[in-house]
């Protein structure tokens, strides 16, 4: 008689409740439950426990979820960006892919604070999220400082991505977001047109930060990933942090 079979374990009852028990064992369990009031009670108790936990889980979290429309639009834009980069990609470290998302949020939060600039001193995150070759510290530090010139072909691509006419090329320096001195790659996703018109947070200031970061990385005081991420997310914030100042130090 089924009721006289060994009682099922909690695990078996749970698997049955979750529909995870193989068909034959499920049939045997159902037969047992039909004849065993104690196990039916255990199953009901477990069902209640699962339901309560699910309610608790949702109650704790659902009200914190923002609308999906903004993130969906952002994803759509980024997918389009990835699609257009097809075939020209480099292998990015996942850290830098993460950094791209951080940049977008950081940009949204900081755009209003940068109204005094003629042009944002940090690049548009969806166009220039930053890209680095998977180099380690030894590889980066074994090469002397100095970064290669940006090839004309890449410069043209950067201008096209930012919708800038080449006739205005003289007004901008096409700069690496993550400097090659710290593993940044010669990739269009790692380049942006930096206007010379920025007189405060300009390329010279960024150079100083890059020098500082390279020194820290090569002395072992900072890991390469952190340096790359700091450049990719918000180099101005990084400058303030590393130099303990709110404005550029004149050199």
């Amino acid at each position, binding site marked *: 008689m089924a009721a006289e079979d060994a009682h099922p374990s909690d695990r078996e009852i749970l698997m049955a409740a*979750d529909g995870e028990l193989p068909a034959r064992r499920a049939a045997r369990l159902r037969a047992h439950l039909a004849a065993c009031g104690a196990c039916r009670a255990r199953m009901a108790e477990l069902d209640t426990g699962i339901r309560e*936990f699910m309610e608790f*889980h949702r*109650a704790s979290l659902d009200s*914190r979820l923002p609308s999906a429309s903004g993130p969906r639009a952002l994803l759509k834009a980024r997918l389009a960006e990835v699609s257009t980069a097809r*075939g020209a990609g480099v*292998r990015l470290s996942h850290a830098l892919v*993460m950094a791209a998302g951080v940049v977008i949020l950081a940009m949204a939060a900081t755009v209003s604070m940068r109204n005094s600039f003629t042009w944002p001193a940090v690049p548009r995150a969806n166009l220039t999220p930053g890209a680095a070759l998977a180099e380690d510290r030894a590889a980066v530090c074994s090469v002397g400082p100095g970064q290669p010139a940006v090839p004309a072909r890449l410069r043209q691509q950067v201008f096209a991505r930012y919708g800038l006419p080449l006739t205005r090329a003289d007004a901008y320096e096409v700069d690496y977001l993550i400097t090659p001195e710290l593993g940044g790659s010669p990739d269009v996703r790692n380049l942006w047109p930096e206007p010379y018109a920025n007189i405060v947070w300009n390329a010279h200031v960024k150079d100083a930060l890059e020098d500082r970061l390279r020194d820290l990385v090569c002395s072992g005081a900072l890991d390469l990933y952190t340096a790359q991420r700091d450049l990719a997310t918000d180099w101005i914030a990084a400058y303030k942090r590393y130099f303990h100042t709110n404005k550029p130090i004149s050199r």
Partner: protein
Amino acid sequence: MAAPPDSAPIEIALPARGESVCASGSDPEPEVLALFDQWRAPLLRYALSLGLRVPEGEDIVQEVFLALFRHLRLGRSRRNLRGWVFRVAHNLALKRREEARRERAAELTAEPAHPGPGPEEQLAHTERHARLDAVLRALPEQDRYCLYLRAEGLRYREIAAALGMSLGSVSISLARSFERMRRAAGG
């Protein structure tokens, strides 16, 4: 399926230079957006369960779907896709949590466990919920992950893939957790 080791690095599929993409030639974007509509909330809730803040969770979700897009574009395996997606999310979330811990060490000295309710849910936060919360906090981390994933509707094989566990370990973990909840409820 063979469960990958828990410490396996996150694999985000990006085409290497010259690597061919999208064997089928189809554009995975519509599918990725459809899956975003379906899985964004569970993924974000899971990231929050692990102690991340909403903007951090949103970041992770974006990265997960970008990774999924690349994965599909490269024509890689679609087997147990939801398990794969949660695995990427899990690994990214733990990494981000570790970074956040370092960044705001003072704020995150305590294990985040399950986040508490906002003011609007305080009324609904019954004594029973307080007991559940206490049980959750006392659970081993891996058991909590299993529970959170189960709460997001994942099947056991998906949980196993997400956490790099065997199927048997998932059911043992869940049974152990629900038993602790039952005992806590019974006083």
